[in-house]
């Protein structure tokens, strides 16, 4: 079996046992990228030279008996919304084409210090606005299960990279589902940590009160390993939680033993019904049954305000985004475009021309919507009201977690749709995030794990688990238990059923 098929935990064990080297592992992944990333297009930038240098340094540390971390030498891909010193960071936008940050995001510094070679930067919807990666200015990423379909978004690049075995680990960001929904439609695992659980310093902000960095992997244990590495307090992020993380790797290992006796699970009433694909619901119900079999007690829980979560989100997010993106003003970094034939144009005219040329359709839509929601006369009716509904959503979570330990739902209402199908229909695109958005509004953690293939189309569906703020360990315990039960039923990981790409040998 090629080393690229192994999990990050297995690669780390092989490195520790001296069975392979980081240079070998990193080269294998670079070869895989060279073989399949043409059609998949998960990467915007590949740093072969840098990754191999970091791998050689890792091997030297191992040889000296001083690895920097458990994952030292295991390569990783990084979503292009995280600042990487010396590597281009575009956020999928023309306005930042060619920008090379002079600093690292805290999570990037952390993975560098822990010895993980950075393979490259992954594709995304422009400034993380989208659910399909089609809003990338550099062309969409394709779903490794079916290249004519979307890989989810905004972090479709990171999810596709791990699904296509181009990287064992990736970093993503989740503002309304951008880690979990791509996980669901690519048959991979993705975690949105508790808000403030992982530093946002150096993450180019979409909506500060919703954004969170998290792991993108193929297994629950791998996510736990990466989450433990990047989590924890960062003085450079004033919203970072100054408390130790719960032990996530232990929770994943305990969960994999399969005993969920005493666990109370709530199925969210409002996240099912019309518009939910039957095959997705069938796989969801099967997973719920497996939790019962493992000893969990399952009840239905109503969160009545969740039906307003999507509308709330599409007022709060554009409001925050329109303010955040005001910094792209053609003065300090990024693109500068002069109005045609106007060498004497003013700074403001240059700004207008640059923002027109540099931003894509979806970014313009959301900036204008946010500007509207924040304008006087509409502020109370829209933004003010949305902030109140946000309170009600948080109260729904609090009431639900009085009754149960975790909440569950399908991650996304459907499997991957065709590229182009919803590109010019914003509302139908937004509906993909129906089930993932409530967690961002309330700041609670969530995980998506594969629940199987939908009968209608043979494409992956996702199972979402949500826990109270700071109880991220519960995601790993329950996620690992379900993953173990499902893997046994399938006779191996779900991704074994994915087509080999490009005739490349698996």
């Amino acid at each position, binding site marked *: 079996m090629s080393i690229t098929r192994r999990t990050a935990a297995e690669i780390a064990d092989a490195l520790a046992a001296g069975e392979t080297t980081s240079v070998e592992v990193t080269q294998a992944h670079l070869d895989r990228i060279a073989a399949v990333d043409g059609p998949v297009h998960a990467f915007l930038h590949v740093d072969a030279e840098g990754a191999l240098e970091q791998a050689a340094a890792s091997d030297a540390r191992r040889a000296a008996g001083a690895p920097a971390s458990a994952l030292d030498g295991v390569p990783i891909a990084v979503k292009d919304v995280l600042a990487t010193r010396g590597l281009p960071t575009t956020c999928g936008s023309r306005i930042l084409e060619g920008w*090379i940050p*002079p600093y690292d995001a805290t999570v990037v510094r952390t993975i560098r210090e822990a010895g993980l070679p950075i393979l490259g930067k992954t594709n995304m919807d422009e400034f993380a606005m989208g659910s399909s990666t089609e809003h990338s200015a550099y062309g969409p990423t394709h779903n490794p299960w079916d290249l004519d379909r979307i890989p989810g978004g905004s972090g479709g690049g990171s999810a596709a990279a791990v699904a296509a075995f181009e990287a064992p680990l990736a970093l993503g960001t989740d503002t309304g589902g951008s880690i979990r929904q791509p996980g669901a439609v690519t048959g991979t695992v993705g975690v949105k940590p508790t808000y403030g659980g992982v530093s946002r310093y150096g993450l180019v902000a979409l909506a500060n009160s919703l954004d969170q960095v998290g792991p993108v992997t193929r297994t629950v244990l791998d996510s736990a390993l990466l989450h433990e590495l990047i989590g924890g307090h960062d003085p450079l992020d004033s919203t970072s939680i100054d408390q130790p993380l719960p032990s996530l790797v232990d929770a994943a290992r305990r969960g994999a033993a399969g005993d969920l006796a005493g666990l109370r699970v709530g199925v969210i009433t409002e996240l099912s019904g019309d518009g939910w694909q039957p095959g997705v619901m069938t796989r969801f119900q099967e997973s719920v049954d497996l939790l019962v079999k493992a000893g969990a007690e399952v009840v239905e829980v109503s969160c009545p305000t969740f039906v*307003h979560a999507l*509308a709330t989100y599409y007022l709060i997010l554009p409001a925050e985004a329109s303010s955040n993106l005001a910094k792209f003003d053609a003065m300090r970094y*990024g693109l500068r475009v002069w109005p045609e034939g106007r060498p004497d144009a*003013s700074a*403001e005219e240059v700004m207008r021309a640059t923002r027109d040329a540099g931003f894509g359709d979806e970014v313009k839509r959301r900036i204008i*919507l946010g500007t*509207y929601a924040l304008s006087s006369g509409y502020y109370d009716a829209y933004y003010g*009201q949305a902030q109140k509904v946000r309170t009600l959503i948080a109260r729904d979570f609090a009431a639900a977690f009085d009754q149960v330990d975790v909440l569950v739902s399908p991650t996304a209402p459907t499997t991957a749709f065709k590229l182009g199908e919803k590109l010019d229909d914003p509302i139908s695109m937004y509906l993909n995030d129906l089930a993932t958005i409530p967690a961002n509004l309330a700041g609670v953690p969530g995980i998506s794990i594969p629940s199987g293939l939908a009968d209608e189309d043979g494409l992956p569906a996702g199972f979402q688990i949500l826990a109270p703020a700071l109880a991220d360990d519960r995601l790993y315990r329950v996620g690992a238990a379900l993953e173990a039960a499902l893997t046994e039923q399938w006779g191996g990981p779900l991704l074994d059923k994915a087509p080999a790409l490009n005739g490349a040998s698996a």
Partner: protein
Amino acid sequence: MPEITRDEVAHLADLARIDLSDAELDHLAPQLTVILESVASISGVAGEDVPPTSHALPLTNVFREDVTTPCLTPEQALSGAPEVEQQRFSVPRILGEEA
């Protein structure tokens, strides 16, 4: 139901400092109306007595010691600038001819 006219979109684009072409205005205005109609469903959901939430978790201001810490050099800070002059960001004129 709220409707957002083409003129309003042009005005908002102006406030947001984006030059939209006529074709873009034609394309965006009806889409924004549909989005607004859909988000307007939350009006009246929360009563007067519900406090707004601006942030998922309660936060207090964070202070740090007033000491210098490492920061970017001028060269690093200017490294992404479209135009640099005399160790400064060089920008187009900011005032009109008559000013």
